[in-house]
């Protein structure tokens, strides 16, 4: 249900037309969660053939119902273009290149089952992992299973999930807690939301398994209030699990009790940091504290606590059922399993993709993502959002896993992947990410509160053309200092975009201060619009200029008065003969 792209009314439309043709009873309409391919939403998938209709509008519903559902004729013009083979055959959704390279574990049920119906989750082997854990395994064995699977935290740092559990398990306490971190905050990342909305039970099951393993009987799901649909689905899932006795006392007659509570976060990025998240659940201001002690020793209300992210938990429930051995076969040696990425930026098929660890960047960008649109060249891929760095085009054959990304000066993060083509300026990109971190800094520690702001201001100086080479050195020095001495992960990773861009594209920074040009022609103070000789003197540009800085008579070459130009680019857009260039 791509509600944000208008899927909500589609259902009503379907109901109406199915009723009209009297085949309402033969067709089952199922609301599902995210199917991943945002660019093409909303979708309608018709099973059993798996015909994948993309960009469906209300008026198209009538056609689909009449043609496909009533008469069985696939409406070709509405089918996702990549699902049509050269010989005009329609491919199953899973055979399109967007999906063919993917391996779905965390997203196994997303877009397939109805998240409102616990039975559909159970039908897909849901809660079998939990049953197996509770009835056939000791907590220690569950932890060993997690260790054997090689699963690492999907929320950012990539710490071994099994180890984390082991620490909490080793700490004796009358009360322990499990927390699901659903405070997804990276701009452009939404894999957690997709899972919460499309397959909430996989997260609940993961939480229960974690609780059983470490000896906790209480879990909190910290979910941001900006995810209203996810909240509704989770609440409903908890109620359904309770009704079936999958939550509550004495689950599966094993003597294991478990309760899950939702806590709504106000959407501060820093609350994704473990200790800030705990402070927020406790009712305090969402500010991180020093580690150690780690939450596994002293967490929520000073009790041993483990915090796992949504995607990690969705993997946990899968691992318990499929077996650690099976899971560990996927991926690379040190990074097992799959990872969900949210693909965005200058890419054809933006959306959620889940690929085995070790898939190359090129496969993700070119084969799954369909490459860069508009014939532009790839410049870099920013991974890990505002906490990560850029992977330049030269490293496209790098196999993606936790360690290779760190080597390349970036990080996995929660899995944001923003593709940048050659029209993007690195200084501008750094500014964009820093603007975010400046805004999201909690203000507790000096380097992050003041340092990120000063870095942002240094970038402004550089992009304005008034900078010097010293400003670049200052920026680098300040960035290293903030990274080195900040209190929490937010501050420590905030300089990453700048540092990695400096590493790979230092010449572009230098062009801004030495040559006073912006190579990608993005930074407004450094660009000029000029009218070339092939101007036909149509006066369109002069008429549309908001500040009247273009002069010239009819059928004569026009001139832009650079002093008054505000570089809005309107003239370039209206010019019928492309005589206006940005340089």
């Amino acid at each position, binding site marked *: 249900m791509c509600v944000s792209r208008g899927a909500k009314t589609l259902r009503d439309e379907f109901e109406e037309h199915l009723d009209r043709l009297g085949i309402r009873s*033969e067709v089952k309409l*199922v609301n599902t969660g995210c199917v991943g391919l945002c660019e093409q939403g909303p979708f309608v998938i018709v*099973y*059993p*053939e*798996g015909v994948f209709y993309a960009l469906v509008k209300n008026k198209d519903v009538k056609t689909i119902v009449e043609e496909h*559902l*009533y*008469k*069985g*004729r*696939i409406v070709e013009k509405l089918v996702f273009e990549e699902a049509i083979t050269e010989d005009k055959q329609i491919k*199953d959704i*899973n055979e399109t290149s967007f999906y063919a390279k993917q391996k779905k574990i965390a997203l196994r049920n997303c877009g*397939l*089952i*109805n998240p409102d*119906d616990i*039975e*559909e989750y*159970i*039908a*897909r*082997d*849901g*809660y*079998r992992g939990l*049953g197996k854990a509770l*009835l056939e395994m000791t907590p220690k064995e569950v932890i060993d299973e997690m260790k054997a699977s090689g699963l690492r935290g999907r929320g950012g740092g990539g710490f071994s999930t099994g180890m984390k559990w082991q620490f909490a398990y080793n700490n004796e306490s009358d009360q322990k807690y499990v927390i699901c971190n659903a405070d997804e905050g990276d701009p452009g990342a939404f894999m957690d939301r997709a899972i919460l909305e499309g397959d909430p039970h996989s997260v609940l099951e993961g939480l229960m398994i974690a609780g059983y393993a470490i000896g906790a009987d209480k879990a909190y799901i910290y979910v941001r209030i900006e995810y209203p649909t996810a909240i509704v689905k989770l609440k409903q899932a908890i109620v359904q699990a309770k009704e*079936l*006795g*999958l939550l509550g006392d004495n*689950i*599966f*007659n094993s003597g294991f009790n478990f309760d899950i509570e939702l806590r709504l976060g106000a959407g501060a990025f820093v609350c994704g940091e473990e200790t800030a998240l705990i402070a927020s659940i406790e009712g305090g201001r969402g500010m991180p504290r020093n580690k150690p002690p780690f939450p596994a020793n002293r967490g929520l209300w000073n009790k041993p606590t483990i915090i796992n992210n949504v995607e990690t938990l969705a993997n946990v429930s899968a691992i318990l059922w499929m077996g650690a051995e099976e899971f560990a076969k996927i991926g690379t040696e040190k990074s097992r399993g799959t990872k969900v990425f949210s693909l965005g930026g200058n890419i054809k098929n933006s959306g959620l993709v889940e690929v085995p660890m070790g898939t190359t960047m090129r496969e993700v960008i070119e084969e799954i993502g369909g490459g860069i649109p508009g014939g532009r060249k790839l410049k870099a891929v920013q991974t890990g959002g505002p906490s990560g760095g850029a992977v330049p085009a030269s490293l496209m054959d790098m196999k993606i896993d936790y360690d290779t990304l760190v080597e390349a000066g970036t990080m996995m993060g929660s899995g944001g992947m923003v593709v940048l083509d050659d029209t993007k300026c690195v200084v501008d990109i750094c500014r964009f990410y820093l603007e975010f971190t400046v805004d999201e800094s909690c203000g507790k520690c000096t380097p992050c509160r003041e340092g990120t702001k000063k870095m942002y201001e240094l970038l402004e100086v550089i992009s304005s053309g008034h900078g010097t080479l010293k400003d670049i050195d200052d920026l680098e020095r300040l960035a290293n200092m903030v990274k080195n001495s900040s209190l929490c992960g937010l501050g420590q990773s905030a300089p990453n975009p700048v540092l990695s861009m400096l590493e790979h594209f230092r010449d572009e920074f230098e062009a801004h201060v030495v040559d006073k040009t912006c190579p990608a022609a993005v930074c407004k103070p450094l660009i000029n619009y000029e009218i070339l000789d092939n101007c036909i003197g149509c006066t369109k540009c002069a008429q549309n200029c908001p500040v009247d800085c273009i002069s010239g008579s009819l059928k004569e070459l026009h001139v832009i008065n650079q002093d008054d130009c505000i570089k809005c680019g309107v003239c370039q857009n209206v010019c019928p003969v492309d005589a206006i260039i940005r340089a």
Partner: protein
Amino acid sequence: MKSLDDLKHIRVSAHRKVAMREHHPGIRIHIGMSTCSIDAGARTVLNKMIELIVKQDLPNVTVIPDGHISTCEQEPVVIVLDGDKKTSYHNVDEAAAERIIKEHIQNGKVVTDHLAKKAKK
């Protein structure tokens, strides 16, 4: 929820809800559902087949409404795809549909009297 059996019970009974959406290799039954096929009675054939599949709880069978498959006078047409083995039936009615399910799908015995003229392997 008191045992794994309880869970299994729900799983089995709910399986049909999602089975169709899963991607699996089993037998696929295509039924021609063009305007002329429906006119010739394809809808009743389709309903009968689905009804039987559900009733007999046949796991690996997928019924797929298809477009115009053959010539009009042969409608309704039913094609059974089992791996690379393709069997086409013509002029299927409700009784034939029942036989196809019971004899062909369940017991692997092709229903010879409704075979298409040029049934090929």
